[in-house]
């Protein structure tokens, strides 16, 4: 394995795990705060139990997310020192604000976790809410830093020099809104379905049904709403990619030849040798419509991009399709939930209905991983779109493959530990959180 591929793989592994920890770390506190609110309002002790159980999950994920985030803040320099040397002053603004938001989150978490029976209920509730709000703010800020790599602005690149730097403009680049919106909604959808799925499993097993039903309801509402509105933000993101990263969009769609009435290919595999998408269903004009809002106008294909500037097509396309398929499935499940809520309440306790949610537990996170694969692999060969190549940014230190192996082991170990801890938390619900039922 050469150092460049090793560095990219290590970054991919690190981001791939961090995104899971951080999504849960930023969304769970919101669920927790909702349940806490219901307890304060209704006085129903089950809500208090749910809040306390969830707060343990938050603490575990916060700790894991904090260390994997610390690793990442160093990895940017350890693996990509040339990138950081130039990009740091330009896109660093959201990172420094994120540092602030994260700090506040850590302080609020200290208050919340250790604040039971110590503070006034509403003060205590506020600290929990602040954990959620600052977590989401952190997420938006970090994603806006990433969006700058996709759509760099706030500087002039003249003769290899980065001049007239404006960090604020860089932070509010043309992609920050669509990208962070898409990610924030995705975090709610993925976490909502994952949490709902676990509680659905416990309901199906008839364990602490009242407790798990209350928890399920809070999580599923967020997950379902997020999954239903996500396609709209996806459309925004795709239009943005068409405008600023035509190569990425073309790779996502395995769309090789620029044409009018550009078709959208559903499914299929990119055949890079013959420059076409195989085995897919073509819907003529739909890609033109999605990009241009009319069926006729052409969309730029991969033929407009020099081969040396094209991203890996097969991976980008497959990852994109996977994300879309899962996104659609979760949206349908979400709609089904609301149908059940309004018209068919008997479904809510049916086995098939619960099974659907149990099956959906990991789906949201698979979609998140696929989505980030599209974003990151689709940007290649650039680390800063159109400005700096990833290969020019990599560290000169040899032997990166060993650090890649090391971090792979660490992340897998950490994840196994987290799963182990969560399963013990769930197993202990009757003893620790919900003694009565």
């Amino acid at each position, binding site marked *: 394995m050469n150092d460049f591929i090793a560095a990219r793989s290590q970054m991919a592994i690190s981001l791939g795990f961090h995104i899971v920890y951080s999504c849960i770390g930023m969304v769970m506190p919101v669920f927790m705060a909702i349940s806490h609110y219901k307890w304060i309002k209704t006085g129903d002790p089950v809500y208090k139990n749910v809040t306390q159980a969830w707060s343990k999950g938050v603490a*575990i994920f916060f700790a894991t997310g904090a260390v994997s985030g610390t690793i990442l803040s160093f990895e940017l320099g350890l693996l990509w020192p040339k990138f950081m040397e130039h990009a740091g002053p330009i896109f660093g603004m959201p990172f420094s604000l994120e540092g602030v938001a994260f700090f506040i989150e850590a302080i609020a978490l200290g208050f919340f976790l250790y604040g039971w029976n110590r503070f006034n209920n509403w003060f205590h509730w506020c600290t929990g809410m602040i954990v959620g709000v600052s977590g989401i703010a952190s997420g938006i800020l970090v994603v806006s830093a990433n969006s700058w790599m996709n759509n760099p602005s706030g500087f002039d690149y003249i003769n290899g020099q980065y001049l007239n*730097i404006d960090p604020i403009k860089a932070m509010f680049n043309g992609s920050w809104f669509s990208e962070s919106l898409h990610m924030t909604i995705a975090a709610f959808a993925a976490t909502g379905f994952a949490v709902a799925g676990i509680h659905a499993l416990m309901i199906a097993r008839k364990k602490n049904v009242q407790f798990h039903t209350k928890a399920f309801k809070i999580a599923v509402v967020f997950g379902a709403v997020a999954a239903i509105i996500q396609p709209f933000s996806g459309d925004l993101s795709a239009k943005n990619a068409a405008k600023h990263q035509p190569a990425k969009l073309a790779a996502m769609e395995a769309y090789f030849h620029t044409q009018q009435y550009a078709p959208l290919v559903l499914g299929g595999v990119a055949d890079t040798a013959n420059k076409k998408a195989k085995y897919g269903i073509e819907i003529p004009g739909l890609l033109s419509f999605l990009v241009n809002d009319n069926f006729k106008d052409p969309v730029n294909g991969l033929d407009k991009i020099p081969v040396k500037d094209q991203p890996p097509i097969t991976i980008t396309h497959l990852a994109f399709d996977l994300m879309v398929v899962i996104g659609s499935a979760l949206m349908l499940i979400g709609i089904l939930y609301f149908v059940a809520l309004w018209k068919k309440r008997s479904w809510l306790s049916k086995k098939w209905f619960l099974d659907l949610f149990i099956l959906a537990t990991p789906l949201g996170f698979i979609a998140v991983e696929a989505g980030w694969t599209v974003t990151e692999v689709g940007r290649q060969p650039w680390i800063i779109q159109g400005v700096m190549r990833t290969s020019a940014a990599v560290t000169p230190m040899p032997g990166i493959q060993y650090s890649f192996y090391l971090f792979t082991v660490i992340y897998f170990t950490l994840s196994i530990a987290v799963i182990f801890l969560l399963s013990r938390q769930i197993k202990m619900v009757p003893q*620790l959180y919900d003694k009565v039922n």
Partner: protein
Amino acid sequence: MLYIVIAFLFLAIVLYFLLGGADFGAGIIELFTSDRNKDRTRKTMYHAIGPIWEANHMWLIITVVILFVGFPDIYSNMCTYLHIPLLIMLLGITARGTAFAFRNYDAVKDDKTQSFYNRIFVYSSFVTPLFLGIIAGSAISRQIDLQATSFMSAYIYSWLNWFSVTVGLFTVALSGYLAAVYLIGETGDDNERRRFVRKARIMNVLVVIFGGLVFIAAEIENIALAHWIFGNMVSLTAVISAAISLLALWLFIYNGKKKIIRVFAAFQVTMILLSVGYTHFPNLIMVKGGQNLSLLTNHAPAKTIEDLGLGLLIGSLLILPSLFYLFYSFQKKNELI
């Protein structure tokens, strides 16, 4: 604005040392506590640092962010030539951060897994400050060679030298010392207090021994440490006042004046950092051949520094009061219990 950013950088480094360092120290104290007293010590420790744990380690994030936004040259060179010690430090941070959280949030507290978390926690509490110290030592040891051609001279000898390693050990002892002094005030039990006083004394002796070793190592590596510290009034004053406050600390330690001894211990560490930092200011990294990386010349363009400074000022208005209130509330409530 550049000076405001630099001030925040030093503030973050000092606070990470004082707060994060004490957290490392707590693990080190645990490592050197006999099995008989371990549970009790652990309980006191957890009680003291649990609520503030995550916040203490945010200062490292703030330090890194200031470096890579404001001083990208320094950050990228550090990351390149000190890649290996940074990596080991990260392993340490990961291991102890998660082990600390896991041992408290494991729903089943059985001896086997608990002792597993404890082992990881104490060993990584030793490794992390060791490598933090090694990194700090390497930054000023002039062993980083920007022209290096071989793997060893570029990526190994930059940090693996007597000076850096003794600074690492000195940092470990200092962390343990800070923790022991802080913990004296956290317990209501007289026996335990006496144990912490004894630990503080041992750590204090270690600080002096390792401090001496740092001077010897500096001689071996041809580093003018004595000149740095005794060669100018500010550094000299800092060291002398640290020494005086050390004497004062030992006078007060037996009188149960816990607040004042904490202030003294924190003061001493700050003075040590000041005395070394002042001599080198504005250089943050001293490289082979004398071409140093300076905070005043190797910084980001003016507009970035302007925005970063503003961000830090606004951020600190949010962070500092709430952090203070966090410390205050749990300190007060702990006293009531």
